[in-house]
């Protein structure tokens, strides 16, 4: 009995895993050694090793792609997520992980629409960085000495520029030759812009003071290099003012947004670069003419003003006429006025002088003398007369002492007669008064309390106070009893008798 039944394919050779992996790999790499794959870029990873990994996808499948480090620079377009691209390369399969992938050596943006979409994305990005802002754009020099042109050294573009420069204002031009299309374009243009900036002013290779980046018209793919970020950034970073002139009027590339000025054509770039020399010569001549005219005007204006001033300036004679007349008048009047004044003064003087003649003075002195004598003569008698009159009046008053003496004597006699009478009357009155006093004293003694003491009564005192009741006696510290023949100190119940100096009291007390 057979353990193994015959089954179809039994005689087919058996592969080891490695064998089959190797076979697949050979098949794939042999059959698909060059493919172009179109798809949308998915995840993109640039590894630290320098190798690039990205996915290509459509609505159903995903294809892994990788580009080795050495191949990246030749890729053409760096794949960006979302970009529609055509990738070229060969298919590879890895036996190690049972996977296949595309080794992409070129990547190109697929189709114009996709290119424009990518351009829009870049524009947004650079605009967000502020690279398009007017404020960062540099003014172009009015008349550059050296113009650097980044373009192809062959072709119409450089000729157009040079011709137009020569027409307007011949200048020194340095051409930095670059590829203006293809993969080399963007890096070369960017490098040229940086290279010009790196030159030193006035060196063996003098640094230009204006740059023109130019290219003629072409398809969007032809112009694509000027849409690359490195070119746009190099233009934005240029310290030398930069004019972009890429394509024809309607072609606008990314560099046009970051350049300091966009020219619609290379010829227009030359026109922006320099002014027209003949115009400037004409202008300079015009300035000269204006200066001459201005100076001329200024001088003639001043002349006219001077003339006007001279016209209104009065003649010297006219100015002097009036003062001269006044002088004449004064000159005329002066002697006359002087004479008159002197005469008037002289008249006045003689008037005074007349009064001052010596005869007149003498007469006057005489008169005065006479009057003085008269007065002095009258003065003596007048004085004595007053005294005499007063003496007479005094005498007339009869002031004699005899009557007064008589009167005094009479009154003295009267007084002497009265004096004895007065004495007698006074003595009698004194005696009467003494009698009366005695009688009164007798009466006083008979009714005085001392008389009652003689009859056996006594007076009780507490200090100076007369004690008249038992209550007062009890409360007193000590008592003094007066009898008709003296005083005794006693102490009421319990109170020690207080020794008391016997002071002789006047025998006169209260009636009670």
């Amino acid at each position, binding site marked *: 009995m057979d353990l193994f039944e015959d089954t179809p394919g039994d005689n087919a050779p058996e592969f080891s895993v490695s064998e089959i992996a190797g076979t697949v790999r050979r098949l794939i790499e042999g059959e698909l050694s060059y493919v172009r794959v179109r798809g949308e870029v998915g995840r993109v990873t640039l590894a630290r090793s320098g190798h690039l990994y990205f996915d290509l996808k459509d609505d159903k499948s995903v294809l892994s792609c990788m580009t080795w480090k050495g191949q990246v620079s030749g890729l053409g377009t760096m794949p960006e997520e979302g970009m529609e691209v055509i990738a070229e390369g060969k298919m590879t399969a890895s036996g190690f992980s049972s996977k296949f992938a595309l080794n992409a050596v070129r990547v190109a943006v697929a189709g114009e629409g996709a290119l424009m979409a990518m351009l829009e994305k870049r524009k947004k990005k650079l605009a967000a960085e502020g690279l398009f802002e007017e404020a960062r754009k540099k003014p172009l*020099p*009015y*008349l550059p000495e050296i113009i650097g042109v980044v373009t192809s*050294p062959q072709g119409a573009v450089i*000729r157009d520029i*040079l*011709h137009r*420069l*020569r027409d307007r*204002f*011949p*200048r*020194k*031009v*340095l*051409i*930095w*030759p670059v590829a203006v299309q293809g993969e080399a374009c963007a890096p070369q243009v960017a*490098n040229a812009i940086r*290279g010009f900036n790196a*030159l030193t002013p006035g060196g*063996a*290779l003098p640094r230009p003071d204006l740059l023109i980046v130019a290219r003629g018209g072409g398809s969007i793919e032809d112009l694509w290099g000027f849409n690359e970020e490195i070119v746009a950034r190099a233009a934005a970073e240029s310290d030398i003012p930069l004019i972009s002139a890429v394509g024809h009027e309607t072609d606008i590339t990314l560099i046009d947004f970051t350049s300091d000025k966009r020219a619609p054509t290379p010829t227009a770039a030359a026109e922006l670069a320099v002014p027209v*020399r003949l115009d*400037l*010569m004409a*202008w*300079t001549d015009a*300035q*000269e003419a*204006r*200066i001459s005219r*201005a*100076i001329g*005007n*200024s*001088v003639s*204006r*001043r002349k006219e003003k001077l003339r006007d001033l001279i016209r209104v300036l009065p003649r010297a004679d006219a100015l002097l006429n009036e003062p001269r007349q006044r002088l004449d008048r004064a000159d005329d009047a002066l002697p006359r006025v002087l004479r008159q004044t002197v005469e008037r003064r002289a008249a006045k003087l003689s008037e005074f002088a007349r009064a001052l003649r010596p005869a007149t003075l003498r007469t006057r002195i005489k008169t005065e003398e006479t009057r003085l004598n008269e007065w002095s003569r009258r003065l003596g008698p007048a004085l004595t007369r007053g005294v005499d009159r007063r003496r007479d009046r005094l005498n007339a008053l009869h002031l004699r002492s005899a009557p007064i003496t008589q009167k005094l004597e009479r009154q003295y006699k009267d007084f002497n007669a009265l004096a004895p009478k007065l004495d007698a009357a006074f003595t009698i009155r004194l005696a009467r008064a003494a009698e009366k006093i005695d009688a009164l004293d007798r009466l006083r003694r008979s009714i005085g309390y001392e008389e009652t003491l003689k009859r056996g009564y006594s007076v009780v005192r507490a200090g100076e106070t007369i004690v008249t009741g038992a209550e007062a006696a009890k409360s007193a510290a000590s008592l003094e009893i007066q009898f008709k023949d003296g005083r005794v100190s006693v102490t009421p119940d319990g109170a020690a008798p207080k020794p008391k100096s016997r002071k002789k009291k006047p025998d006169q007390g209260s009636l009670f």
Partner: protein
Amino acid sequence: MSEKPVAEMSFEDAMSALEGVVNRLEAGDVPLEDSIKLYERGAELKAHCQKKLAEAEEKVAQITFDENGQPKGTTPVDPA
């Protein structure tokens, strides 16, 4: 009045200085002595401008590179 020596001026500076001189003179309010000075300066500026304009010289050269791609020198270009 800018005191920068005229000989050191760029064409543009000389131009605007000349314009300034002309405007001042045309304004007519400059004292006579100053206007003479301005006139002299204007003449100097004008001469400088004309010199700069006369200096216009066409010279076209293309940059050459060494083996490392660095600019090395120039080679004349016939612009015709």
